[in-house]
């Protein structure tokens, strides 16, 4: 029971992180109908910015946690956003009317570039940071087994929920949200009624990147280690989450993330840790075979 509860907590935490990354996939897919293959790397860059940020602040002697956290979150989001913007500007925008394969390849090129860029700039070694937030609540105790809910986990939950609310408001209430929905439905028409399509797409990439940056910061806090390769698997998993929830659906991305996080936590706990990455992939293939439109997505009717 205690063990189960602990896995539930860990799984939900992991799921929130996947969900945040998945939002970026789903938003970009919604608006340009393409997978952003470099999104995993954007998240990895966010995590590196967190490592650098915390280390620099530590050296400067700023160790009051809320302040350090806010500064790091803010700078990571800001700089990652520039990466997201640049990615769209360089790898996607010139290819709006190119053959379908071209943007996929250029995005993969960008992803390879980012991976190697970070590896060259920061070194290939794993980067550990000293724990920024430690401790937690003991939720439950049973026969020597304690169920822990750490402060970091609480922070991740709260931050994710707050972001979700802010994000839902953004999409529903603001003109940017309306422009996004218009571009999703019919880009040509949207531009005819005066929506700046390029700007809307850019902003979508930027928002996706900031969410990925938050996920990166949280992963850094949660695990305390980062390397240049983490974007690869996280990208595939978050994409799985987006597909599972129904690509194009924002609540779906979060739901898919949570399910995936739980599956992974329980799979590692009760089956095998070695194959935990295979679990996500199996889910991806199963969903694609049996329900390609995902849990909350609408089936796509291809316009002919």
């Amino acid at each position, binding site marked *: 029971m205690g063990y189960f509860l602990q896995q539930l907590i860990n799984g939900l935490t992991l799921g929130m992180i996947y969900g945040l990354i998945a939002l970026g996939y789903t938003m970009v897919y919604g608006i340009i109908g393409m997978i952003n293959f470099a999104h995993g790397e954007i998240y990895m860059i966010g995590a590196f910015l967190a490592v650098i940020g915390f*280390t620099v602040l530590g050296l400067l002697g700023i160790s009051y946690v809320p302040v350090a956290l806010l500064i790091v979150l803010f700078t990571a989001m800001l700089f990652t956003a520039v990466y997201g913007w640049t990615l769209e500007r360089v790898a996607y925008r010139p290819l709006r009317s190119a053959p379908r394969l071209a943007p996929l390849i250029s995005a993969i090129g960008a992803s390879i570039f980012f991976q190697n860029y*970070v590896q060259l700039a920061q070194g290939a070694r794993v980067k550990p940071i000293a724990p920024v937030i430690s401790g937690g609540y003991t939720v439950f105790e049973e026969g020597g087994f304690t169920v822990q809910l750490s402060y970091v986990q609480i922070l991740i939950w709260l931050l994710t929920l707050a972001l979700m609310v802010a994000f839902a408001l953004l999409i529903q209430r603001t003109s940017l949200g309306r422009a996004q929905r218009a571009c999703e439905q019919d880009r040509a028409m949207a531009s005819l009624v005066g929506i700046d399509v390029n700007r809307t797409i850019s902003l979508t990439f930027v928002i996706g990147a900031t969410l990925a940056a938050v996920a990166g910061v949280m992963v850094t806090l949660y695990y305390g280690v980062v390397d240049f390769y983490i974007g*690869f698997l996280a990208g*595939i998993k978050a994409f799985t989450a987006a597909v599972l929830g129904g690509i194009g659906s924002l609540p779906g991305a979060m739901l898919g993330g949570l399910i995936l996080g739980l599956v992974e936590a329980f799979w590692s706990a009760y089956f095998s840790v070695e*194959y935990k990455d295979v679990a996500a992939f199996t889910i991806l293939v199963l969903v694609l075979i049996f329900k390609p439109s995902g849990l909350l997505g609408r089936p796509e009717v291809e316009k002919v």
Partner: protein
Amino acid sequence: MVANPNTAPRIDIAALLKDAALTAAVAFALALPLIGFRTVDDPAGLGIETRFDWVATGVGAVFLGRLLLSWLFALRGQRPAVGSGWLAHARAQLDPHMKWIALAGMLFAFLLPFLPFSSRYTIDIATTVLIYVMLGWGLNVVVGLAGLLDLGYVAFYAVGAYSYALLAVTFNLSFWECLPLAGLFAAFFGILLGFPVLRLRGDYLAIVTLGFGEMIRIILLNWVPVTRGPDGVSGIPRPSFFGLPFTANPPEGVTAFHEFFGIAYAGSHRVTFLYFLILLLALITNLFTLRIRRLPVGRAWEALREDEIACRALGINPTNTKLTAFAIGAMFGGFAGAFFATRQGFISPESFTFIESATILAIVVLGGMGSQIGVVIAAVLLILLPELGRELAEFRMLLFGAAMVLIMAWRPRGLLAHREPSMRLHSRNHRGES
């Protein structure tokens, strides 16, 4: 172009400067955190090393570069149209002579081991190049012809390598018995993976293959009883020359290659033999591809790449047709993998990472999707670059990532892509052609 002083384009210097400054500002934001601050290992955790001079140099270079570029574009009046220009022209000029270029290349390849400058080292490198040429040609069927983005091609390479290694080590099968099996296994995996995914849109295939490549590696690492895990498989039998082994002291009752031909033993015999083996395999891949492009199935691949919806309206079964392309590509990957295993004598999961897939894809894209000669040029470039210096080796993948982005923007069908129809109604110099 005739320069006319009256209509010479007016260049708005202020706008150019502003544009360059904006670009430089973005470059600054990109470079500052990741280049400006380098995390270094420190006994007490992580330390930071600042490199603001690098950032300043980089941003300055971006500013000047952007200014120069936009100034040049402004001088020409407009940005060059995508996909046009001198390269396409030069490529088209070469086309009538392609047969001779290919023949000359093949002659060179056959003579290479006997040329005065070639050593064991050159033959070794050439063998590696040829492995990548073969992989590139195999992947070209999938990406270049059928337009399917396979990001996990290395998985089929791995399946081929492990099939050969395990069959040979466990059941004592010879290379020639294992080779077809390795190809079949790889093709089987291709079908298994492709079947659920190929019905769906192209990007799903890309990400599923990306995942599949990684999953195969994880399984190879963890399924220790069969794959021997991270230690890999060693003692893989080396190929023999129709039963004549390349060993200095063959076991009792076995004639070695040098004994049979009555020549002195030399280690280079095997290296040369391996070279010719991969040359043969690569040429088979090439001939097969060239031939199948002219068959209905090859044309259907290309038609699917161009417009899947139109294909369905013409009665072509898209899933099966894509599946054949995917399986054939996988099969060649499997053949190459078997060769890799016999050449190395030892394989482990480390040889089959995503970087490998990315390298092969880069070869195909850089060479020009669908272009056979382009693959050779790109493979030579990609394998020789690191040999030229350590710096180049480090920056290789960075450069190739960037090149993939730039080439797609410049020529979205591939750098050397030039399509020659698979059949003609009129002879080549017919006037009707535009």
